[in-house]
């Protein structure tokens, strides 16, 4: 059980770093390898690791199941919402150039903005789904 203490301390220390790494992978996606998926998986893995070490209730106190259940569809909504905006400018679904007139950015930067927003949607859904799936399995083992 003493080894356990080391593991617990390490994983507690690890959590913020994992989340930071996820943020790096997320934001750096345009310039290097990475993006919403990879970041989402890493962030989800952070919470899962925490849950494995400290038990399901501890993980659920950081990420309540209700919140997770809300975040899973929220990511899709962010993605789809970005797509729907273009309808209002008579452009096709998911045409990020429509973000130009909204924000006053040039076409190229409107594209980049679109990519960033969409990747956030991906991150939210992927990370929360990973956590949701873990909660599902871990919750089954409780009784």
């Amino acid at each position, binding site marked *: 059980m003493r080894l356990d203490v080391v593991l617990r301390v390490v994983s507690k220390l690890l959590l913020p770093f994992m989340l930071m790494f996820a943020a790096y992978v997320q934001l750096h996606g345009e310039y290097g390898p990475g993006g919403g998926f990879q970041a989402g998986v890493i962030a989800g893995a952070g919470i899962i690791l925490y849950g494995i070490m400290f038990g399901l209730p501890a993980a659920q106190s950081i990420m309540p199941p209700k919140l997770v259940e809300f975040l*899973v569809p929220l990511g899709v*909504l962010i993605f789809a919402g970005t797509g729907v905006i273009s309808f209002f400018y008579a452009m096709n679904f*998911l*045409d990020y150039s429509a973000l130009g007139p909204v924000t006053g950015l040039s076409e190229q930067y409107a594209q980049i903005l679109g990519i960033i927003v969409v990747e956030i949607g991906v991150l939210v859904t992927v990370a929360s789904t990973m956590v949701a799936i873990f909660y599902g399995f871990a919750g089954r083992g409780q009784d």
Partner: protein
Amino acid sequence: MIFEQLPALIVAVPLLASVFTTMFQRGHVAWWITTLSIFSLPVMAWLMTVEVLTNGTISYAMGGWEPPIGIEYRIDAANALVILIVSAVAAVIMPYARASVTAEMASDQHAWFYTMYLLCVSGLIGIAATGDAFNAFVFLEISSLSTYTMIALGQSRRSLLAAYQYLIVGTIGATFYVIGVGLLYIVTGTLNFNDMAQRLPEAGYENAILAALAFITVGLGLKIALFPLHVWLPNAYAKAPSVATALLAATATKVAIYLLMRVFFSIYGTSIIFEQLPVLELMLILSITAMFAGSIVAVFENNAKRLMAYSSVAQVGYMTLGIAMASVLGLSGSLIHLANHAFMKGAAFLVLGAVAYRLGSVKISDMGGIGRVMPISMGCFVIAGLSLIGVPGTVGFISKYYLVLATFEKGWWWLAFLIVLSSLIAVLYVGRVVEAAWFKTPSVEMRQIGGDPPMVMLVPILLLTLGCVVFGIDASLTSGLAETAAQSLFAGWRQ
């Protein structure tokens, strides 16, 4: 202006609705969201169909990126017809769903069941609308995952088993499809159907193209439940919640058949290579086997839902028979049967759902005399059954009429004979249910089950049955659409 966005909207509306049904986890709110969004689909599908018929093919570039750089939605008469079928059936089932889902599921599952229903519908429409081979795979998976989940929500513990088995088979099928698309991509460098069709004749690398055809055919064959790849279907249909069974039986296999037609005729049809493999001959043999084997197994089935599921295996045989004939007339027959089968199987499974709702069982041995107790529903079942047989005045007759015409055109008299012969077997299995329902005296318990189901369930049944009769008497709408659709699938066919 909004009309130009219809191809995207028809997929995006149910997807967005599924987001909201997930967020508001209240069963009745979810039902309203689902119903309102699903009711908009047939309207949009109809507008698109009119647009296609008047102005020709619609090409819609997702994200504003022109194909083949971006993903294209390409609507011609063929997929307009398929989208129309899917959205119409999905809408008709909705009122029925409320009563049936409430009876069959725990209340905290309702909202997310509707999420799955919406995702399944949008996945199916997405497969039909897309003009991109890989995008079709993504939407195939959306519809598949939601289908597995719906099946697993059935009441019996066998539902879980059926869902698991379908998941394994379905994933193998999808992976085969991905292998096929990968090989096509390697030799053509594109994923866009239209672009692929143009580049295929000059591509060379015959081996890879033929292997791709084999993989795509087997992969989609698993989804279609083409004999002998049908083993997952009877359990899946028999054990799913009634609403899910009706939706799947009426739409899911049809969309996969459409995709197979698209690959065969619009892509491979442009190239001489198609004739180097005996695909069509093989398909002819399998279709005929399916027509007979499916029907014969159905005759000996005691569970009415399974009986109808085996009948679906046989009916799929008629649809692929039209593909195997590779003529405009044969393909028209397939497409008409696609639409008609949605009416009759939709109606039949909804009636069986109503029986399950009142009686709690769909075993034929338990259904003795149920016709006297639930006369309207079982009357509708008789009409749907006559349709399955192909009696004149019903839609089934129109389908078979076209198929028989196509065999005459080819000079295959023996095939016309086989079509008629297999219809006679349908008399036997439909007859078994009808005999139990109408020619036995109901037991005392049977008299107490409460008669026909509530109005919300009865109206969808009546609507689909009405479709069986109306389009059976005046087939100008369906057959006109199907002929135009067959011609547009054949547009690139090498002369």
